[in-house]
């Protein structure tokens, strides 16, 4: 298709999409008797909840990347005990639902340890959960560095740590960043489950507004858009990174 035709195609598709979307919105507006006024008075609650979700996600992202890195290195350590430990961590955490982990770790483990602060517990549990997935991503990134590279590094006389620093990490980072950005979006969405622990993030905020105003759709629709507002930029970033880091090796 020539560039000229391609552009016309794009414009027509966009126009069609816009018409369809507006028709949908109009239909929705007509079908439901919207009560926005009640929800609007609670906008502060939404805002606070949204901010809480943001900082919980940031904290969990940072911690889980650290955990994931340690676990990925542990999987490749020359000590079998360490390898088994980290493999066990990754398999168990990835094999059980986050909800189950939240319930077990908070109501059982945190109680036993005496951890009272819900927010800290929530961030920790979310980080442990996410860390297992990130560990696998990092491990795949490291393994993706060709064996011939490692041999080259040996032939030159690099130590284990030098090989990680000069050869493996620079290349692994390129493989890991795109799925890592995807995992960031997952963390943002998974943080909604922290609401069951009574942590006042975005989802719980919406539930509170709903119980106060009885306007269900008006409470939950902003919730969806609020999460989209966070995850869409992250997805776009992931795609940009994917394109930037593709090269021959």
């Amino acid at each position, binding site marked *: 298709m020539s560039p000229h035709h391609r552009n016309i195609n794009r414009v027509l598709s966009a126009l069609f999409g816009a018409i369809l979307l507006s028709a949908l919105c109009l239909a929705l507006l007509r079908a439901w008797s919207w009560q926005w006024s009640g929800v609007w008075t609670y906008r502060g609650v939404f805002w606070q909840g949204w901010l809480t979700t943001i900082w919980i996600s940031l904290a969990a992202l940072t911690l889980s990347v650290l955990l994931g890195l340690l676990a990925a290195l542990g999987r490749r350590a020359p000590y079998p005990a360490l390898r088994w430990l980290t493999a066990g961590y990754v398999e168990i955490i990835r094999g059980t639902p986050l909800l189950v982990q939240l319930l077990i770790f908070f109501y059982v483990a945190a109680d036993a340890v005496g951890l009272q602060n819900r927010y800290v517990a929530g961030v920790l549990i979310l980080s442990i959960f996410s860390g297992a997935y990130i560990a696998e991503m990092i491990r795949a990134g490291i393994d993706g560095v060709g064996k011939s*590279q490692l*041999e*080259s590094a040996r032939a030159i*006389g690099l130590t284990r740590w*030098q090989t990680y620093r000069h*050869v493996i990490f*620079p*290349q692994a980072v390129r493989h890991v960043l795109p799925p890592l950005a995807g995992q960031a979006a997952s963390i943002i969405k998974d943080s909604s489950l922290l609401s069951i622990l009574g942590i006042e993030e975005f989802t719980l905020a919406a539930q509170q507004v709903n119980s106060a105003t009885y306007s269900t759709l008006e409470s939950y629709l902003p919730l969806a858009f609020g999460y989209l507002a966070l995850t869409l930029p992250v997805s776009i970033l992931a795609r940009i990174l994917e394109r930037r880091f593709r*090269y021959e090796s």
Partner: protein
Amino acid sequence: MNLALRNLTKSYSGRTVIDDITADLDFPHVLALLGPSGGGKSTLLRLIGGLESPESGSLSVDGTPVPSDKKPLRAYRSNIGTVFQSWNLFPHLDALANVMLPLTAVHGLTADEARLRSEELLERLHLDGHGHKRPAELSGGQRQRVAIARAVAIKPRLLLFDEPTSALDPEMTAEVLDVIADLKAEGRTFVLVTHAMNFARTVADQVAFLAEGRILEHGSAQDFFARPQTDSARRFLDRVLKY
């Protein structure tokens, strides 16, 4: 240079690749390892380079045995320059950085010293102007020359070439072989595994013929090509020099 092999054995997952070899290989500059595929040439080269350790037996270079402990082995490896068939350059570094890395990371040169030496070498190998390019942006022949620059930059006591031109087209093969011939003219010592038979004939001082994990014959290159002693060698040369 003298390579002393004593009952050298190496196997991979049950398969014996180097079969109890005892030999003394003496050569002023260039030793060529020739033979059919799977005969053990590459493995022997890797044993000489300290990249593999033998199951049993020993290997000594000029009287000093190749170490088996981690640290001394690493030090030994760092003084040997290797050039393999598949470039093995680091794709995320440009040509200059590739040559500089062993100098700064292993041999303790400062960045400036390393850069100076590397740029000099790249120029000598007709790669000036290409130093800032990544391996993906270079031709096969250029990549191999960068690999040679990296191997030579560390001023090694021994260079090892494992089929350096097998993956190159005839023109690039010639440009790389020119470089290797220059290295010999400079007086460097190296062991060469190659299928470029005419090149081996021109450049080698000594030849060791390996088949099925054993050295069937070894001696001066002239003698080997003119009067091969064993049937295997004779058959091999007939096949390889046919075209």
